Structures are given as structure tokens and as C-alpha cells.
């Protein structure tokens, strides 16, 4: 099995083998400022695509016993600018537009005519912490039926009283644990936690679960994906 060669040929073999490693240098593209941004965007986009494929409509997030709840006063309040955007509850309603057969301003009382669901689920923040909370509200899927939404549309887009905005893929919007939440821990939602109405989505990361909702739009096209998404966070971020 042994073949023979001279030192010169052996050096040439070595050089050739070393050159075969040049594909590794392709990673250097990530160090080039003008390429870095689009490459990382593509990488994040691939992760989001994979996330969408991994999402299972029928798979429920774990629910917990009351004894597992994080105490209410230890449930963090994460507002991106203000804890209380001064919503006037008497004048509040949810403005529905887009691909729906019944666009209108919906009052909280109208929304609360839908069946109420209460669930103890985990809330995971992108920062890394997690808490278990008790959330009560109506299924977003029920509300979408109420407003006559075209559920073949791709997104549900929401805007908030504090200029925050978010979007959801339709599959997640239709998930049975995705709630329009008006209660936490059996009490009406507090202002700091997003009164009068917020999203609770146990299959999504925390920043997708927008508070103080004011507007809801069913749409195929997103002008903006979300407050944090537009700064570089994942658009899908399903758990």
C-alpha cells in the first residue's frame, strides 16, 4: 500500500490539500460590513422559515396548575416606552380593518360576548427569563370568526395605544391558545399589563404578545412586521 515520492512532490501534494480548504474562507464574508447585514438577515430568515415549518397548529403549549403560577407581583411588566399609555376605557374600542366582512369598532363588551377561556401558561421573554401566568380572554380565532375575517389571509396585524405594533402569522392567530386577553390572575387586566385588551400567545416569544391593543387588521401584506422585528428581531419567533 505504500507508494514512494520525493520531498518536492510531497510539498506540492500538501500545498494542493491546503488550497482545498479555501471554501472555509467563504465565512469571511460575515466579516465584510456590507455583506454582514444581508447575510445575517438571510440566516434569521431561514430560522424563521424553519420555525414556521416546525409550528404545529394542533400542538398545545404546556398548561400549569395554579400552584405553579408565578406570583402576580413577580410577573414582570415590560413596556417598551411607558407602563401606562393613559387609555380612556370609556372611549376604548378595537378598530378592525382589512380582509374582514364586518369591519367596525368593537367594544370590550362585544368582545366579551365570545366564550371565555382561562389558561395558566408560560410567558418566555426574548431576554431569557420566563414566568407562568394566569390569563383569561377570548380566542382570537373566535374573534376572527366574529369579524368575518378571511382566514386564508397571511397575517393579523395589531397596533397599540403606545405606538407599539405587532404581527402574527395566521396559523398562530388561529391556534386555540392564542387569546385576546382581558384578565390576568382572575382580575381585570391592569393598565401596566396592557388594559383593556392584550394578546396572550403561549406559542410565541413575549414581544409578540402586544398590550393595550387599539387596532386589528387582517392582511396579506405587512408594511411593518413589528416594533422589535423592524429593529432586527425574528419576525416569527415561535416557541
Amino acid at each position, binding site marked *: 500500500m505504500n507508494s514512494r515520492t520525493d520531498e518536492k512532490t510531497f510539498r506540492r501534494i500538501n500545498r494542493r490539500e491546503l488550497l482545498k480548504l479555501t471554501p472555509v474562507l467563504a465565512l469571511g464574508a460575515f466579516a465584510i460590513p456590507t455583506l454582514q447585514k444581508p447575510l445575517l438577515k438571510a440566516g434569521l430568515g431561514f*430560522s424563521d422559515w424553519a420555525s414556521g415549518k416546525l409550528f404545529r397548529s394542533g400542538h398545545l403549549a404546556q398548561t400549569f396548575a395554579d400552584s405553579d403560577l408565578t406570583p402576580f407581583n413577580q410577573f414582570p411588566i415590560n413596556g417598551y416606552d411607558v407602563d401606562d399609555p393613559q387609555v380612556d376605557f370609556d372611549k376604548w374600542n378595537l378598530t378592525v380593518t382589512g380582509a374582514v366582512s364586518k369591519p367596525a369598532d368593537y367594544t370590550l363588551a362585544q368582545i366579551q360576548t365570545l366564550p371565555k377561556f382561562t389558561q395558566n401558561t408560560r410567558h418566555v421573554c426574548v431576554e431569557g427569563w420566563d414566568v407562568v401566568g394566569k390569563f383569561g380572554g377570548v380566542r382570537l380565532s373566535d374573534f376572527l370568526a366574529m369579524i368575518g375575517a378571511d382566514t386564508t389571509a397571511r397575517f393579523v396585524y395589531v397596533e397599540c395605544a403606545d405606538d407599539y405594533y405587532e404581527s402574527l402569522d395566521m396559523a398562530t392567530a388561529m391556534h386555540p391558545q392564542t387569546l385576546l386577553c382581558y384578565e390576568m390572575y382572575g382580575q381585570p387586566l391592569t393598565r401596566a399589563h396592557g388594559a383593556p385588551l392584550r394578546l396572550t400567545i403561549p406559542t410565541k416569544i413575549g414581544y409578540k404578545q402586544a398590550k393595550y391593543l387599539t387596532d386589528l387588521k387582517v392582511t396579506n401584506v405587512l408594511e411593518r412586521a413589528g416594533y422589535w422585528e423592524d429593529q432586527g428581531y425574528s419576525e416569527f419567533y415561535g416557541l
Partner: protein
Amino acid sequence: MSTQAIAIENAKTRELTEAVYEHPLIVRLCHWVNAVALFVMVGSGLQIFRAFPSFGAKIPQKDLINWPKSFAIGGWLGGALQWHLTFMWIYLATGLIYVGYQVFSGNYKQVLFVRRDLPGVWPMVRHYFFFGPKPPVREAYNPLQKHAYTSAIGLGVLSVVTGFAVWKPVQFSWLAWMMGGFHLARVWHFLIMWAILGFVFGHLVMVVLHGWNNFVSMLTGWKKDPEYLSK
């Protein structure tokens, strides 16, 4: 497994030196790309950790360590997540290609740690750490090396598995459950990173101790005059 060998003739002395093709191209490619990916994963992971440097409650928050920003990649949480969620695929792909190649080529036999390597571990440890006599070198990889590289693959698998439990604790709820829930999965993911860094440290020390000829073999594949042939 057929290892290519070649005899190199010195032009003047006519002396022959043996060289062995130890690392096939695919192994070398995977090694270096994975090394870069690991570097990025650790750096961006530490930046992600900086956003909540704790494993306890959010309220009250007790920070474990204030990891310096200069030893992290991404600049901020969102940037670090972009790096992490991009390079995890490169890390995973090179790992899968490497393991797949090792299995299908039979190459794994020279490096996989098996039961009969067990008695050889202590003599090597004694030699490396306690100035014991050097055990005879019979194979490309000594028992301690096999143990280190096999463990490293195990740790690599665990880093991916715990990572998926942290990234997708709902879709992979069974994974998170196996690790004691999402909260603990994050702890495991962090600990496994340190274990991998421990391996990398030992690996680099050994690379330095074993010299240039050994290092070059991971670049060109060829190792000149390997110890296990000369004796």
C-alpha cells in the same frame, strides 16, 4: 478503513520518511468551519446571556455575572440573536456532515472511544498531568484523546439538543421536559457551553504541545513521520 501512506525520499541522503493521510478533506473542512461556527455561537450566546445574566427569577433579579461586552459578539441582544440563529445552522450542518462521514467511511474506528480503550486512559492521564512514564503509542489516537474527541462530539450533540429546547420549548416540549423544563434547559445549554470551552482549552494546549507537524496535518491531511509508525 484504508489509510493512505506514502514514503518520502530525501534527495540527498536517500532516507525514507513515512507520511500518513490522517484527515480526509471533508473532516478538515468540517473541523475548521465548525471551529468558526463554535466561536460565533459562544460569542453571540454570551451576548444573549448578557440580556438576562441570571438563572433565577426575573423579579427579584439576581445577576450571576456581569459578562463583559467586549468578549461577546453581536453588540446587542437582537444582533447576537441574528448571529446565533444564523451560525447554529452552520454549526449543526458541519456536525452532521462530520458524524455522517465518520460513520459511513468507517473512519470513526480510529477515534471513537470504546470499552477496550478504558484501561489506557489512566496511564495517559498520569503521563500528561502527573509526570508519569509515556505509554507506548500504537494508534493515531491514544485512549485519552479518543475519550476527549468522543466526549466533544457528545457535548456538541447536547449543545444542539439543549439549544432546540431553549429555542422551541413548545414544539419540542418533550425535549424541554427531559431537561426539567424550559427554565432548566437554559441552564443546561449554558453549562454545556462551558464544558465545550473546557474541551477547546485542553485541545489547544495539546496542539501547542504536539508541535507544528501535528498541527499541519489538520490543514493538509498529511502527517509526516507519525509516532505510531516509527516505533
